[in-house]
Each structure stands twice: as structure tokens, then as C-alpha cells.
């Protein structure tokens, strides 16, 4: 069990790192959110699942599970809220973006 | 407790205190009752004080109160003055505001003065001293809306001096472990003892109105009700200030020659400065205020001689001064009441309208000026004697200057009182006066004035017989030698004879109208022919010399002019000077408080660093 847990946590940590790198590298808010949300959410969920495997007591396992579910539910919501706020505020897309139908619609 | 009630030393304090409280509590409408109660209480106090005065030294059971010849004498004088003022106020205060407070304060002033005089403990003295300042403040304050500045100034100087008295007491206490007045006299060796001495001196000077702590007196004289001025600044405060000075000189400290010289110096300065300032005043009461300051100088001179004669002279002069200055202030009160003004320019010709007041005023004025046979002459004469005497024996040449100042002061005083007499009573009535229907003064007002005036005469003629013998010399407690005695009685007899002869001449010659009328001359020309710019020849003309105009020339004298200019910009007013410096410091500090939070935060950090430095480094 411990080994499985470790592996899962390792994967989670790697995804976390990738997400964060993406968040730093990507050119605009929306892309950063993409990287951040997806990778970090998955990463943390993996860590929590790994914790489930490695934890010594049932309550801890349960809490880890609840926590994972909560993250899975709220993280995309938060990302969505942020993206919407950014868009409403008028934060422009990266200049090399191909299309912006949001802006097009608002202009109409 | 019962013993305490029957303690004879406590009674003259307690009676007026309680009576004052009753006065304050009596309903507003009971004014006559209040007035009579005041009179009765002061009269009772006089009666209670008499045995104290006559009975010699004694100390109360608890050791807090003590009476000796000096304090008994001054206490008696105080009580008598209070009685006179109370009688005077019966009429004076009838239609004025604040009677309730007035009566209360009058009685309380008497009580606190009694406390201060009978105190055997310096702390009690300080307490009563401060309370007197407060009652004085209240009494000036109730003299109407204009008096508030004067009240504030008075309280600042007198109350401030009380604080200095506190410091002096504290110094003595801390250094010598006792606040008893009869403790061993302190030799002025250490700096703290000298500081204590100067604190006491400042308090006494302020109370008595010695320059440069005098400036409350003219203001107070000008603004306060006449009886208030007559009672507190003119008599009671003088008595107390001099009392304290005498105590300092005789009991509390061992006086050095330098101190005496200092006394004489301040005395001379006060005489000259105050009378010169008085000379140019146009307000009768203010003028009297300055005049009152000037007279303290003589007393100080007397004390400064450090001889028994000087002391006796000082005490005598103090008493005399209180008498004639009260008389003058009360007279001024009548003038103000009847004429509605104390502006010398608007007064005139009151001699016929207020004959008794005029007579009293005249006597008191002549007494102030030191004209024989009145009491002022007697005491001044003693002071001159003492100055000459001590000066010759000590070899310090300062006495010559002092004597010159005293003489000049006398001359100035005479001049300024002539001015007053002329412009208030003798000169032609001004339109203002002519319009007024001036009634004679009521008896409660007239009685004290006449009494005081007659005291001026009696104490002058029988100087040796009554006041010196019964009042002053016992208070000095040592033998006094009179080097060149002024035989007051004989001289007075001669003067009286001269006066009688003069009257007979007048009666037989002038009254019969056998007068030679001559034209009025001015500058060697006949008045109606003289060329006066702006007045056509032949037009009706008369010359009014109001007295004030005459003394305006004094103001313009080349030496005096700059001094007067400085005086009018209050350069010599220590209250004003210190006030300005304080205000400047305050403005400076206020400017630093910019209202900006980061500045304050900066101060916080600086303060923290400073504290850190002190705590971490420690002190050497």
C-alpha cells in the first residue's frame, strides 16, 4: 500500500510542478488558469489519494477523500469565476490568440 | 472636638467662614439680611481678634495656629478693614449683580487671611494663601464682564505666586524636615535654601504688588469694584504680603546684606516706576492702583534697612498705606457711583457736589503724598531716617540712591495726587458732570471713608502715641531708637495754628468779597488778547486746565518718553512677557503636530530607539 501511495503522491507532485511551471510560462491569464487549474487540481487530488493509501487511521483517509472531492468540485468553479472576472474586467487575451468570440459578442 | 470649637485662635477663622457659607446659602432675595450678616460677622471677628491682639503670643493645642504681636496686629487691621468694607458694601452692592458671591467671598477672604496670619505651619499658610487668591479672583470676576481679564491676570500672578510658595515650603520641608514657622531660621547658604527664599520673596512681592510682579494691581484697581480693590489689593493683600516678608526676615530666614540691598533695590525701583507710571494714567482707579504699587516700595525700603527702626517704619507705613489707600479707593468708588465714570478727562468739579468725599479724599491724598501732619508723613519720615541710619552705619552707598528714589517718589506722588484732586474735584465740571444730578453719598458709604480719613489724621498727629506705641512697636518686639524724632504732636499743633490763622485771614478778607479782580494772563499776555491759533481775536475764550493736559507734558519729556512708550507696550509687565514667550513656545510645538500619521509613527520609532539606547546602554 505504501509504495502505491508513494507513487501516486509522486505523480501528484509532478503534476503540481508542471501546473505551476505552466502558470509561470503561459502568456496570459486564461492560459495560466488552464495550466494551473488542471494540473494542480489533479496533482493535489493525487496527493490526497496517495495519502488515503498511506494514512494510518480511517478518519484521516475519509478526510483525505472528502478533501479530494471538495477540491475537484471547487477548483474548476474557482477557475471559472476567475476567468469570467478577468474577461469581464476586460483583461485582453494573448495577442497571438486566434479568436475571441466573447469580445465579439460583447461588442454586438 | 468641643475643645477645638472653643479654641480662641480658631474662632476668628471659623466665624467668617461659617458666616460666608450662610451668605452663600441664603436665598437670593434676602440681600439686606446678607449685608447685615456680613457686617455682624466681621464685627464679631474684630471683637474676637481683639483679645488675641491684646493677649500676646500663644499657640493652639494642635500646634497648627499661633498668634504673636505681629500677626495679632495685622489680624486686627484686617478684621477692621473687613468691617469697614462690609459697611461700605451695604449700600454699594445694593443694586449690583453677584451680591451673594460677593458677601461670601468677603467673609471667606477674611477667614483665609486669618488662616494665613495665624498659621503656625507653612502648609497651612500656603493653603490659605491660595484660597485668598481664589476669593480675590472670584471677587474681581464678579465685578462685571470687563473685569474677566483683570481677574485672570490677578489670579495668574497671585495664584502663581502661591505655587512658588508651595515650592518654597517644599524646599524648606525637604531640606530641614519641618514646615513650622517657628522652626530655626534658615541660613541662606545652599542653593536650595536660596531658591526657597526667592520663592517666598516672589510670593510676598506678588501679593504686595512689588515690581516687577505688580502688574495685576493696576488692572485689578481699574476693573474691579471699588470696595473689592479697597479690601483686597489695597489693604488685605498688602498686609499679607508684608506680613510674609516680615516673617521671612524675622523668623524664617537669616537675612544677608545682599538680600537687604536687593530689597532696597526693588523698593526703589517700585517707588519710582510705579509713581511715574501712575503720573500718566487717565483712569482714576488705575492711577490709584499704580500709586498703591508705589507705596509698597517704601515698605520694602524700610524692611531692606534691616534695622528695628526700618521694620517699625515699614509696618507703620503698611498700616498707613492700607488706611489711606482704602480710603482713596472707596472714595473713587463713590465718584464712580455718582459720576458714572472714573475717566479723569470726564470728571471735574465734584468738590462741591461730594464735599465729604472730597474732604476725605483730600486728607488721604495728602497722607499718601507724605504731607504733614498726616500719617503718611510720619511713616515716610521714619523710613527716611531708617535708610539714612542704616546706610551710614553699613557704608554701602546704595542708600543714597534709595533715598533719592524715595524722595523723588514722594514728589511724584504729590504731583499725581494734585492731578487727581484737580481733575476730579477742583477743576471746572465737565459737561458730563454737569448733566448728572449728583446726590450725596449714603451714610454706609460715607462712614467708612470718613473713618479712614480721620484715622489718617489721628495716626498722623498721634503717631507716637497710638499706632506706634500700641500696634507697631510691640509687633517688632525689640527696642526702636528714633534718631531724629519727628514730634508729630507738636508739629501738628503748629500746623493747626497756621491753619486757623489762615482761616481767620480768609474769613475777614476774602469772604467779604474784597478781592482785586485781575485779568487772566497767559504767557505774559492777557488771555482775551493773546493770539491763540484757530481762535479769532475777540471771540469768547476761556482756558480749561484739566490737570490731565498738564501732565501730558510729562509723558513727552525726552528721558521719560521712551520709557513710557515701552511701558505702554507692556514691556515691564512680566505677566505679558512670560505669556508671550509661552505662547511662542506653544505655537512652535503645535506646528510640530502636523496631524500627519506617518510623522507620528516616525516619532514612535524614534522614541523606541531612544528608549532602547537608554535601557541597553544604561547610564553612566
Amino acid at each position, binding site marked *: 500500500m505504501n509504495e502505491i501511495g508513494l507513487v501516486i503522491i509522486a505523480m501528484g507532485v509532478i503534476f503540481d510542478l508542471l501546473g505551476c511551471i505552466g502558470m509561470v510560462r503561459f502568456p496570459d491569464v486564461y492560459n495560466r488558469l488552464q495550466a494551473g487549474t488542471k494540473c494542480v487540481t489533479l496533482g493535489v487530488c493525487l496527493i490526497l489519494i496517495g495519502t488515503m493509501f498511506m494514512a494510518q487511521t480511517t478518519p484521516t483517509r475519509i478526510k483525505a477523500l472528502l478533501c479530494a472531492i471538495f477540491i475537484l468540485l471547487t477548483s474548476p468553479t474557482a477557475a471559472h469565476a476567475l476567468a469570467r472576472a478577468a474577461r469581464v474586467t476586460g483583461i485582453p487575451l494573448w495577442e497571438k490568440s486566434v479568436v475571441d468570440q466573447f469580445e465579439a459578442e460583447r461588442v454586438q | 472636638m468641643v475643645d477645638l470649637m472653643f479654641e480662641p485662635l480658631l474662632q476668628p477663622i471659623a466665624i467668617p467662614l461659617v458666616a460666608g457659607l450662610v451668605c452663600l446659602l441664603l436665598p437670593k432675595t434676602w440681600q439686606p439680611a446678607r449685608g447685615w450678616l456680613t457686617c455682624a460677622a466681621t464685627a464679631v471677628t474684630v471683637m474676637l481678634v481683639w483679645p488675641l491682639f491684646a493677649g500676646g503670643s500663644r499657640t493652639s493645642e494642635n500646634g497648627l495656629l499661633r498668634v504673636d504681636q505681629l500677626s495679632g496686629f495685622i489680624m486686627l487691621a484686617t478684621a477692621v478693614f473687613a468691617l469697614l468694607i462690609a459697611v461700605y458694601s451695604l449700600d454699594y452692592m445694593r443694586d449690583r449683580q453677584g451680591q451673594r458671591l460677593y458677601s461670601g467671598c468677603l467673609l471667606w477672604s477674611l477667614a483665609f487671611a486669618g488662616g494665613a496670619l495665624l498659621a503656625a505651619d507653612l502648609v497651612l499658610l500656603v493653603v490659605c494663601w491660595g484660597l485668598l487668591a481664589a476669593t480675590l479672583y472670584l471677587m474681581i470676576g464678579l465685578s462685571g464682564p470687563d473685569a474677566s481679564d483683570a481677574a*485672570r491676570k490677578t489670579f*495668574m500672578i497671585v*495664584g502663581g505666586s502661591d*505655587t512658588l510658595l508651595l515650592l518654597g515650603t*517644599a*524646599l524648606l520641608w*525637604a531640606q530641614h524636615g519641618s514646615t513650622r514657622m517657628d522652626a530655626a531660621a534658615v541660613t541662606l547658604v545652599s542653593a536650595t535654601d536660596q*531658591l526657597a527664599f526667592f520663592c517666598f520673596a516672589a510670593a510676598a512681592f506678588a501679593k504686595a504688588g512689588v515690581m516687577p510682579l505688580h502688574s495685576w494691581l493696576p488692572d485689578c484697581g481699574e476693573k474691579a469694584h471699588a470696595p473689592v480693590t479697597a479690601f483686597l489689593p489695597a489693604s488685605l493683600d498688602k498686609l499679607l504680603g508684608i506680613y510674609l516678608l516680615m516673617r521671612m526676615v524675622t523668623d524664617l530666614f537669616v537675612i544677608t546684606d545682599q538680600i537687604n540691598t536687593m530689597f532696597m533695590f526693588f523698593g526703589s525701583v517700585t517707588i519710582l516706576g510705579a509713581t511715574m507710571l501712575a503720573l500718566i494714567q487717565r483712569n482714576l482707579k488705575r492711577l490709584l492702583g499704580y500709586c498703591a504699587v508705589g507705596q509698597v516700595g517704601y515698605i520694602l525700603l524700610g524692611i531692606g534697612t534691616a534695622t528695628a527702626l526700618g521694620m517699625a517704619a515699614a509696618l507703620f507705613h503698611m498700616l498707613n498705606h492700607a488706611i489711606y489707600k482704602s480710603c482713596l479707593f472707596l472714595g473713587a468708588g463713590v465718584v464712580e457711583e455718582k459720576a458714572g465714570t472714573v475717566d479723569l478727562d470726564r470728571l471735574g468739579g465734584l468738590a462741591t457736589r461730594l464735599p465729604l468725599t472730597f474732604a476725605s479724599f483730600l486728607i488721604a491724598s495728602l497722607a499718601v503724598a507724605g504731607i504733614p501732619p498726616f500719617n503718611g508723613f510720619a511713616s515716610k519720615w521714619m523710613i527716611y531716617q531708617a535708610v539714612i541710619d542704616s546706610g551710614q552705619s553699613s557704608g554701602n552707598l546704595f542708600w543714597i540712591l534709595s533715598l533719592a528714589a524715595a524722595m523723588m517718589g514722594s514728589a511724584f506722588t504729590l504731583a499725581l495726587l494734585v492731578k487727581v484732586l484737580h481733575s476730579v474735584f477742583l477743576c471746572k465740571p465737565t459737561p458730563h458732570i454737569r448733566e448728572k444730578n449728583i446726590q450725596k453719598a449714603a451714610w454706609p458709604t460715607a462712614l467708612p471713608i470718613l473713618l479712614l480719613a480721620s484715622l489718617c489724621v489721628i495716626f498722623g498727629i498721634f503717631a507716637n502715641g497710638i499706632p506706634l506705641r500700641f500696634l507697631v512697636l510691640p509687633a517688632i518686639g525689640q527696642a526702636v531708637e528714633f534718631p531724629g524724632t519727628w514730634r508729630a504732636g507738636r508739629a501738628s499743633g503748629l500746623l493747626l495754628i497756621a491753619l486757623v490763622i489762615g482761616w481767620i485771614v480768609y474769613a475777614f478778607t476774602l469772604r467779604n468779597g474784597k478781592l482785586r479782580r485781575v485779568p487772566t494772563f497767559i504767557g505774559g499776555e492777557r488771555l482775551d488778547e493773546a493770539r491763540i491759533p484757530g481762535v479769532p481775536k475777540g471771540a469768547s475764550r476761556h482756558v480749561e486746565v484739566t490737570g490731565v493736559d498738564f501732565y501730558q507734558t510729562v509723558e513727552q519729556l525726552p528721558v521719560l518718553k521712551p520709557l513710557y512708550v515701552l511701558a505702554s507696550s507692556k514691556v515691564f509687565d512680566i505677566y505679558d512677557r512670560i505669556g508671550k514667550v509661552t505662547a511662542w513656545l506653544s505655537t512652535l*510645538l503645535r506646528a510640530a503636530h502636523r496631524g500627519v500619521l506617518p510623522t507620528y509613527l516616525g516619532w514612535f520609532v524614534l522614541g523606541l530607539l531612544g528608549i532602547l539606547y537608554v535601557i541597553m546602554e544604561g547610564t553612566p
Partner: protein
Amino acid sequence: MNNLVPLLVAIPLGVGFLIPLAVRWKPQMAELLSNLALFGLVLLSLSLIGNQTIYHMGGWPTPNGIDLRIDDLSTLMLLTINGLALIVGIYSVVAMQPYTSQHRYYSLLMFLVAGTNGVALTGDLFNLYVFMEITAIASYALVAFSGEDESFEASLKYVVLGGLSSSVILIGISLLYAVTGTLNMTHLASRMSEVGETAPVKFALALFFCGFGLKAALVPFHTWLPDAYPAAPAPISALLSGVVSKVIGVYVLARLLFNVFGINDDMLLLMRWMGGITMVAGGLLAVGQWDIKRLFAYSSISQVGLIVLALGFGTTWGVVGALYHLVNHATFKPLLFLCSGQIETAAGTRDLRQMRGLGRRLPITAGTCMVGSLALAGIPPLNGFWSKLIIVVVGIQTDHTAWAVTVVVMSIVALAYQLKVQQRAFYGTADAPMEKQLPVSESPVLISIPMIVLAIGCIALSLLALSGLEHPLLVGPAADVLMRGVWKP
């Protein structure tokens, strides 16, 4: 009996929280409940006179639990706090009528009292911090209570400076805890002597000086006070100046220095200089003021300087003088602030330049204010005189004649600014518009009584002096508590 000790904190706290509920039932419950509570507190404090106990909260012994400490000093403080609070509470009944949401005012007042009582009682350093913060937060809110621009500004400045000082104090407490491993003041005192005067201890001491110095408004940490006191409603200014800044500033500092750290010459020197400078600066600043409450506020600064200076003389008698003056200041300064409230209500302004002749219409205010002014200026025989006398004598005895002279000079300055108030506000005649605005009759009884009581207090407290200047009733034993030195377990 001892079980009632924590009620001194518990009652006002409970009532403070009960008030918002009770006013739903009847709006008058706020003033009723708080005044009842304050009355109870006064009785409680009276019952503590002469008591010397350590009360263990929850029954835990000294190092583990929280102690409440009753000795003569804390009793003196409690009497002052609760007595004054009751007076202020009665005054508030009428004075606070014009304000909206009165019940919040009373709640905050209760918290203020609870916090201050707690500070006076506690024997635990962190607990002290907590109570101090309760007091501080309540005072921040009360300063802002009147809802004017200036009151918000004043409160903001107070809150930032006060917050900074609280942080500084907390750092000091943490340091002491790090060094000694305890926060119980008795325990701390004994550990401190084991640890010795190491750098962290000294550092903490400096931080306390700074932090509590701000609470007490010592120069240069005084800047919040002249803004805050005038901005607060008059009864609150009275309470803040009378006890709050004294208890959470001066009292705590004295307690810590004398009973926990152990006093030494450096501390005394610092106290003398800080107190002296504060006294001088406060007095000079007061002279130049035209806003009557601001003038009184600066005068408070000056007086607190005097108290700290007296503590800095370091002898028993000096402490007596300081404590005596502290108690005296808690009578005349609140009196003056209450009077200023009446003046402001009557004249519609606080600017002395615009007032004149209020004395005729407000005889009680004028009379009591006069008593307060003269007491503050140290005019005998009012209480301020006796404490100043003691302080001056002690100053000379301990060879600090220069400071004694300064005290006397500042006394004269105090007389100057008090007479300025007297003259401007009460003397003279009001001009026509002012005359029209003035109330026809003097204020209601509930306003007058507190002022008269305080004025009588100014006179009556001098009776303490009659019981022996060197060891007056209540004050003398309280001073002994400080002078007995570092607490031993």
C-alpha cells in the same frame, strides 16, 4: 468573598453582551442595566478594600492557571475605575440621548470597564495583554462613536498607533516568555531574577516602555491623545482621561517595573525624563489651544507626565505622590471633560474664541468647572494641591530640585490654561446670537449630579491628605505594594 473577584470582569462583559438583546425588549434597558452593573461594581470594589489575595481562575495553581491578584494597589485602581465609570454612566443617560444606537455605546462602555478592571486585576502577562486590547478596541470604537469626520480620523490614528504599540507590547511579552518560559507575573518575577538582566529582558523592557508609554500618552508617543479625546463623546473623554489611559498605561508600567522587573536607576531616569518632557510639552501645548476639549486633552498629557515623573523619583513617598495625583486626576479631569460636554451642548461649539458669558446660564457647570480647574492647577486646598506638594517635596528630597521647579512652573502654566478656559467660557456676557442659543435653565439633574459629585470629590480627596501626607489612606498602602519590590512566589 474571593469568588466574587472575577465578577469585576464578568459582570460588565456579560452586561455588555446582554444589552443588545435587552434593548429589543425595552430600549431603556441599556442605560438601566449598565448603571446597575456599574453600581454593583462599585460595591464590589468597595468590599475589596484591605483584601490581599490571589485568585486562581478555574482552580489551577499559580504557574498553570490564570491568576487574579487583589492587593491594595489594584483595589485603589478598581475603586477609581468603577467609581468614575458609574459617574460617567449616570451622566451618559441624558448626555447620550441625541446619539443614535445608544445601546452600542453602553455595550462598548461596559467592555471598556471590563477590560480596564481586568488589567487592574490580572496577574498574568498575556491576560493583561488581552484585557488591554479589549479596553483599547472599545476605546477605538467609542472615539469614533459620534460619527463625525474628525472622530473617524482620530479613531484611525488612535487605532494605528495603538495597534503598533500593542504589537510592540506583544513582542515584549513573547520575548519574556521565550526567556523565562512563563507568563504568570509572580512566576515571571522570580524567574527574572534567575535569568538576570540579559539583552532580551532589557529589550522587552524597552518595548514595554514604548508600548505602555503610548497607552499612557507619554511624549513622543502622545500624538493620538489630543485627537482622540476631543473626538469622543464627553463622558468617554472623561473616562479615557480619568482612568483608562492611566490604568493601561501608567499602572501597568508601574506594576511591571516595580513588581516584576525590579526597578533600577536606568528605569527611574527614563521615567523621570519621559514624564518630565511629557509634562512640559503637554502643558505648553495646552496653553495654545482654542478647542476646549483639545486643551483638556493636552492637559491630560501634561498631568500623566507629572505622574510618571513622580514615579521616577523612586521613593515610597514619590509613589504615594504619583498615585495620589493619579486618583486626583481621575476626579478633576473627568469633571472638566463633563463640563466641556455641557459647554459644547450649550454653546454649540468647542472653540473658546466663540464663547463668552456661559456662566450666568450654566451656574452649576461654571461652579464645578472652576473647582476642577483650580484643583488641576494645584490651588489649595483642593486635592491637586496636595499631590503636587508631595511630588515637589519628594523631588527636592531626592535631589531632583530642577524637576521640582519644573513641576511648579508647569503648575503655573496649568493655572494659565485653566484660567483661559474659565475666562473665555464663563466670564463676560454672551453676545446676542449666543445668548439666544443658550439653554434657559441649567441641565437636568442627571447631568448635574455627576459633576457635583466630582467637584465634591475634588474637595473630599484632600481629606486623604489629612490622614497623613506621608502615608494617606488607600494611597499609602497602594504605594507600599509597589515599593515592596519584586514579587516572590
